[in-house]
């Protein structure tokens, strides 16, 4: 092919421009620290990175839900543990009141009854425990779970938290689930304590024995609920550990997809710089050559 000054100039200019634009690409990667400057640079990488970023944002969301779930469960756990203490004391009082010395002493009976009533009030306030202004044993109803007379105000709804992708943990137990259903043969724990106090006051030994058995039933119910809440708290904790690990993995993978391998990019930049300089030198040597230099 015939080569002339202008065709040579054109192709040289194009080669130089290409070299420079490659160098600029590498420089942009280096200065931004990002491999994915635009989606089209790496469509599949972009798709992966978008998915990973989405997962990370969801993980943040789940972390917030986990905190919330833990708050609920901790509140419930504390209330239930304290409730068990209260009920144990109530059982003690009932045993002492039922003893031969207890039954005979009128003043002692009224003191035992008063103590039982105060324990009932204490239990009632525990049953109204709230987390962030929300009663934890109230289902989805507003306000306190039990009114001062011990009647359940809430509903039977469960409260669920999304704590990980497709993992839901129920964070609440309703009043009846923990303290028993009002009415019926046994009634809830407040009714039992009420009747027990009355039986103690009246010195009715048979009634005291019946209510002692009922109290034990309710005690077991609360104990079961405590175990249940504890199990859920353990699941929340376990999920949190796994989520934290997962977050680490996600962040690392995102970095692998998105971030520039600095060493590789630097070496590439150096190589491109070298080849650009070499072509500049070649151009500087070859282009000025002309027959004119050799004609007299």
């Amino acid at each position, binding site marked *: 092919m015939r080569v002339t*000054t202008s065709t040579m100039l054109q192709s040289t200019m194009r080669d130089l421009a290409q070299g420079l634009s490659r160098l600029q690409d590498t420089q942009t990667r280096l200065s931004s620290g990002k491999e994915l400057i*635009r989606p089209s640079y790496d469509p599949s990488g972009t798709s992966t990175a978008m998915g990973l970023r989405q997962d990370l944002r969801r993980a943040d969301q789940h972390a917030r839900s986990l905190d919330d779930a833990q708050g609920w469960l901790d509140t419930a756990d504390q209330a239930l543990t304290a409730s068990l203490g209260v009920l144990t004391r109530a059982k003690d009082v009932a045993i002492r009141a039922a003893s031969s010395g207890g039954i005979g002493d009128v003043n002692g009976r009224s003191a035992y009854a008063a103590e039982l009533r105060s324990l009932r009030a204490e239990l009632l306030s525990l049953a109204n425990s709230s987390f962030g202004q929300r009663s934890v044993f109230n289902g989805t109803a507003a306000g306190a779970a039990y009114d001062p007379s011990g009647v359940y105000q809430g509903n039977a709804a469960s409260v669920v938290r999304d704590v990980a992708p497709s993992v839901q943990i129920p964070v609440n137990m309703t009043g009846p689930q923990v303290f028993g259903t009002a009415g019926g043969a046994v009634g809830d724990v407040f009714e039992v304590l009420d009747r027990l106090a009355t039986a103690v006051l009246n010195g009715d030994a048979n009634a005291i024995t019946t209510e002692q058995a009922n109290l034990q039933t309710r005690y077991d119910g609360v104990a079961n609920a405590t175990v249940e809440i504890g199990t859920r708290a353990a699941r929340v904790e376990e999920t949190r550990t796994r989520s934290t690990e997962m977050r680490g993995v996600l962040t690392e993978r995102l970095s692998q997809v998105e971030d520039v391998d600095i060493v590789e990019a630097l070496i590439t930049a150096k190589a491109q710089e070298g080849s650009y300089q070499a072509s500049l030198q070649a151009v500087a040597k070859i282009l000025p050559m002309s027959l004119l230099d050799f004609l007299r």
Partner: protein
Amino acid sequence: VPSLSSLNTPHTGLNAQRRALDVIAHNVANARTEGYHRQRVEIGSLGTTATTGVFSGASRTYGADVVSVTRAYDEVLASRAIREDATRQSAASMRTAMTTVESIFPEPTDLGLSAVLDTFWGSWTDLANDPGSLAARSQVLENARWLATSLNRTDSQLQAVATDAATRIGGLAVEVNDLAAQIADLNRTITSSSPPNNDLLDRRDVLAGRLANLTGATVRPTTGGKVDVLLGGRALVMDTSVQTVTGSTGVLQWTSDSAAVNPASGEAHGLASVIADVVPRYRAMLDGVASQLVTSVNALHTAGYDQAGTTGRNFFDPANLTAGTIRLSADVLGQPANVAAGAPVLPGPVAPGPLDGEQARQIAALAESASGADAQYQSLVTTLSLETRAARSRFDIQEQVADTAMRDAASVGSVSIDEEMVALTTAQRAYEANARVMTAIDEMLGFLIERTGVVGR
């Protein structure tokens, strides 16, 4: 025996070599002129013409003359270069448009729609965690409004790409008409001289190349160095008459009958497919995201209950299903208490407790749906990134092809200084040699004049 007429032969030689020198000077002067093709002088001998000599009846005369001045031009290579360059231009305008569309979707970052969607869903989860909080409800509304605004803005940015292309077509039509008129003018001028003036031909070819760049118009040579220019199968320039086009409506049309011009390549082709294909397609995909968002959120929201136990409220305005128009419904706009976070209690359905956040949780779970707005948006970005990459690599390849074609064409016509210097030296030497011949004849004649008739003197 030399005669006075012998002086004529080196004289024709001197003339011919001087013409050759003129053309070499012309080449060197135009070494960097766009579209210039180097010219060559063809010198022929004058050996056959018989004239009557002074002393010897009929005799042959000798000498040389310039037969023609031709330009180094390869029809095939030149038209291939023009065609490939027009295709390159089409690919370039497509690449530019795709890159612009791509920049409207800043992914993967925390600035794109993907992040806005996640924030929106996240605020539903927060509401589910704390249904009693008015702040959480306000947050849901605020994030929804931001999402709607982002979709509106993205849509109008896409539309702007098409509008810009339409405006460019208007300007392009003016350029096309101007070039066509110039070509028709040159056709007229070219026919007035025979043989056609090489420099005018070069200028005309440059104009035709520009026209091809804009519209992919093709050139058909006719008699006497003239050309006709065809655009989408119809004549734009026929001899010296011109048809005009208009682009004021954003579509390239013939002025005479408003028929659409269908440019096969060139910038106009790229622009037309941006307006008719690329932008509508991505807008439709974005509309899909918006309508999916409206219908899926509304389906759950109308079934849900607010704290006062009211149900049946739309969250987004169900009448506005496109990305350009999506907005909050009047039921909830500015009324955070009306956001339905509670799920219906079945059977019934009856209103749940005021602190139920189940429906909000369900709405937040839409983010995970395989056919949901997020998934649709992600597929939009993937399609876009693949298409942009294809557009860019098509341009890169076409640029190589066009560069090669143009270099091939230029290799025939471009001026090589070295070559011209060799030709210059040759012509110079030939000129000197002719002058030397003239001197020799002069000396011989002088010898005759001074020495004849002096015998025995």
